[in-house]
């Protein structure tokens, strides 16, 4: 027994010694590294894929930033491996490009050309397949090709849920997948008809579902504590996921009247747990919530975005993104939470909510920091608890920031909004963007620290982001043409399409559905002279469309018969036309009373339906470090996102059971 203990200790010590040797290759800088000298293959993989992490040779030149010392861990990777740019497949958004990265195949083969996907025989109102779901894929993802003996952890990965891996794996969903308990963070704001109208649909996450911004007035019936005597307060009850929190709005006399100066919070309506002034955050508070009739342990964190004159308040309740009902296996939520605290997966919401008031930006930035902190700490936690052979990790924060209202439109000189601010203001915006990039770099650092010499380390992203100057409300054009028949819903004030009488409609993200005999009740792809004529008319209408500056939004309109050969898309999951837009524009579904086609969007960044080959702002980084990979090697030409997995498998000496469409990037291997 004693001998056994000694041996165990010896094995552990020796393993630690070996690991420390492995770590030394990164921690001592480029001169001492020796990772690429062994011409054998890596047996482990650590692949970090921050979403929307723009990298291009012109403006977001992260390789130069790294060389300048701003991104020291990316610099370590560059010095230890090979690096270059990777071009997204079309459409240049998250679901299509994560599927391309994770399968090494085009959408025409992996079956994921979009987020919402419609098919023949079903209503266009209801999408049949969601591109973020693992069930949408027609081929295995990378994690399904390693066999039972590899320990696999997937963190916040699009397309990973419902979990495909039920043994020897951990799947932490984060935002994605349409599986399990969604607990979005929410804003509570003073009821205001003007603002509510302004937000309209965007305040809702889901039309029949919860609102991401909720409007309410103080009500004395929520007074707390019941025996308290406070004259200068008013009271709110904040209901969220079956739980209630009580808030007390505290007023102070100021010149000319009173104003709100602080908000107190209580979970039981008796004890004040925290009092927050403008801009302050509370700690996390554990709370039991409900989801589909099940009790779930969660956590809330309170934040006063602003409270001020005229009784105005805007309160953010951040909700733990991880719980036992959105991870696999379920005890992982408690295990990781007890180690590093509740999960902040990414800032803001989708659709964006922190875009309406100047103070929203501060809240957004604070959530950026919290999400990066959580994801950085998660790397140590996951490695120490689960010792994964394969760790694939996404964080959505870069995409949220670069497509939000506040940055891209003002830092990229190709934007029409670029000159709306001063250079001094722009310098501040750049420093905020750079902080986010540095934050991602610190996660890279943790990835490197936890890798051993058998680990292939890959850093990449699904796409970049470019300025969005104008939303193109194409359905307003189709309505003017008489191709869409709609009525205004008296309850919501929103247009409702009469699918039976409508012949042409645009639906996200890049599809136009056409049938001269009507688009409902179910969609049927048709043919014949009438169809051909109408489709040609639609193409002509789109082609002649131009904004007030004479700029045309349409890049290409591709008929469904040609989408496979020209765009690598699956014809059975696309519309009758697939439309690509030129940079600066973005397609939108809205039908509005004013009939405007070109409108200024709230967001200032975009990535959805642009051909990325010549639009460098949509490019993303690819850095790879491991056995047999050249060190300090700049890849000569941009690669495609579908090339990454074949290259990774080659580096790991893995034979994929199915031939991938991407190519192996031969030039990065020591022995080609």
């Amino acid at each position, binding site marked *: 027994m004693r001998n056994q203990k000694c041996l*165990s200790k*010896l094995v552990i010590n*020796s*393993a630690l010694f*070996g690991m420390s040797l492995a770590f030394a290759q990164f921690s001592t800088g480029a001169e001492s590294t020796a990772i690429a000298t062994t011409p054998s293959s890596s047996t482990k993989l650590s692949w970090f894929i921050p979403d929307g992490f723009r990298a291009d040779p012109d403006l977001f030149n992260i390789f130069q930033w790294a060389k300048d010392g701003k991104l020291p861990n990316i610099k370590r990777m560059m010095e230890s491996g090979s690096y270059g740019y990777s071009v997204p497949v079309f459409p240049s958004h998250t*679901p299509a490009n994560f599927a391309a990265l994770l399968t090494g195949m085009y959408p025409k083969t992996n*079956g994921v050309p979009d*987020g*919402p996907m419609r*098919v023949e025989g*079903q209503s266009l*109102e*209801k*999408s*049949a*397949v*969601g*591109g*973020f*779901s*693992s*069930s949408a894929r*027609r081929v*295995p993802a990378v994690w*399904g090709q390693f066999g039972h003996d590899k*320990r696999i952890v997937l963190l916040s990965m699009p397309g990973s849920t*419902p*979990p495909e891996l*039920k*043994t*020897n794996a*951990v799947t932490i969903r984060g935002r994605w997948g*349409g599986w*399990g*308990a969604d607990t979005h963070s929410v804003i509570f704001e003073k009821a205001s008809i003007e603002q509510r109208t302004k937000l309209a*649909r965007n305040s809702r*996450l*889901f*039309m*029949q*579902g919860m609102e991401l911004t909720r409007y309410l007035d103080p009500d004395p019936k929520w007074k707390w504590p019941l025996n308290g005597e406070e004259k200068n307060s008013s009271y709110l009850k904040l209901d969220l996921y079956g739980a209630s929190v009580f808030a007390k709005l505290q007023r102070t006399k100021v010149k000319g009247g009173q104003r709100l100066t602080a908000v107190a919070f209580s979970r039981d309506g008796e004890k004040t747990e925290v009092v927050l002034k403008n801009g302050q955050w509370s700690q996390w508070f554990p709370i039991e919530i409900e*989801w*589909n009739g*099940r009790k779930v342990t969660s956590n809330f964190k309170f934040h006063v975005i602003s409270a001020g004159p005229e009784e105005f308040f805007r309160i953010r309740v951040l909700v733990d993104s991880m719980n036992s*009902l959105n991870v696999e296996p*379920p005890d*992982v939520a408690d295990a990781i939470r007890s180690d590093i605290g509740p999960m902040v997966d990414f800032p803001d919401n*989708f*659709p964006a909510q922190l875009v309406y008031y100047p103070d929203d930006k501060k809240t957004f930035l604070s959530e950026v920091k919290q999400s990066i902190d959580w994801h950085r700490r998660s790397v140590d936690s996951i490695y120490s608890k*689960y*010792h994964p052979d394969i760790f694939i990790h996404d964080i959505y924060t870069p995409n949220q920031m670069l497509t939000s209202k506040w940055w891209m439109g003002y830092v990229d000189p190709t934007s029409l909004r670029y000159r709306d601010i001063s250079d001094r203001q722009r310098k501040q915006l750049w420093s905020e963007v750079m902080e986010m990039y540095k934050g991602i770099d610190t996660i890279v650092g943790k990835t490197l620290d936890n890798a051993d010499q058998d680990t292939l380390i890959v850093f990449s992203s699904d796409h970049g982001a470019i300025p969005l100057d104008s939303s193109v409300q194409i*359905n307003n054009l189709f309505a003017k043409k008489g191709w869409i028949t709609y009525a205004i819903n008296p309850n919501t004030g929103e*247009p409702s399409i009469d699918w039976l009488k409508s012949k042409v*409609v645009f*639906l*996200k993200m890049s599809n136009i559905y056409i049938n001269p005999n009507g688009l409902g009740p179910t969609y049927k792809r048709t043919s014949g002279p009438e169809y051909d004529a109408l489709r040609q008319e639609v193409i002509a209408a789109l082609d002649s469309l131009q904004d007030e500056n004479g700029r045309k939004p349409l890049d290409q309109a591709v008929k469904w018969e040609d989408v496979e050969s020209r765009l690598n898309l699956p014809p*059975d999951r696309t519309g009758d036309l697939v439309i690509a837009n030129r940079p600066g524009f973005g397609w*939108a*579904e*809205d039908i509005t009373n004013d009939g405007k086609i070109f409108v200024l969007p709230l967001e200032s960044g975009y990535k959805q339906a642009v051909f990325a080959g010549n639009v460098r702002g949509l490019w993303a980084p690819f850095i790879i470090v491991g056995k047999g990979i050249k060190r300090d090697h700049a890849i000569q030409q941009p690669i495609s996102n579908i090339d990454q997995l074949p290259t990774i498998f080659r580096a790991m000496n893995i034979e994929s059971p199915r031939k991938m469409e991407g190519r192996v990037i031969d030039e990065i291997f020591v022995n080609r």
Partner: protein
Amino acid sequence: MRSLSIGSLVVALVVLGVVRNTYAEQVDDPVLIFGKPYIRVSSLAGSRAYEMKGADGLVVQVKEIRARNEAVAMAFIGDRLALFKSVFETKRVDYPGQHSRVIECPAEYKPQFAETNREDYYVAYFMGFANQNKVAGACLPDLIAYRHMYGFVYCKKQAQLFELDHYSNPKLNAPSQFLEALSCEP
């Protein structure tokens, strides 16, 4: 000096993969579950997992879940079935728009729930379809590769809880045969 050289040897063996990482669970010989032989497979987060493969693409995956008593087992079953059911609920689309709002699995592809409470065991399951990656939620004909039964078996006398994924050829009636032969005796 001597221990260093032994240590170096072990390091070398670890690096070469000769010494198995002690964290991974051992894969044992076949074990009898529900009266059938299963192969134990590696499991990362503590529970024991087993798999059986048969003819016509049959794959049965079983995970033994720790449950102190029947009440804990039933609560766990309730949570997990709610989670499974959520895949098929009408939900918002990934990129919502004015007219892109809802993802909905057509009724014909939604799994059907059933449960049986016998003296020796309780079984609750959904019967539906899975895609070729063995993921529930195949809601289009071209995605369907397996008939998929997902559920739980609680053996009362043994106080054992099993999570069950049963994948079979959709043209066959393998799940019914499995359920008919179900037994908590080894």
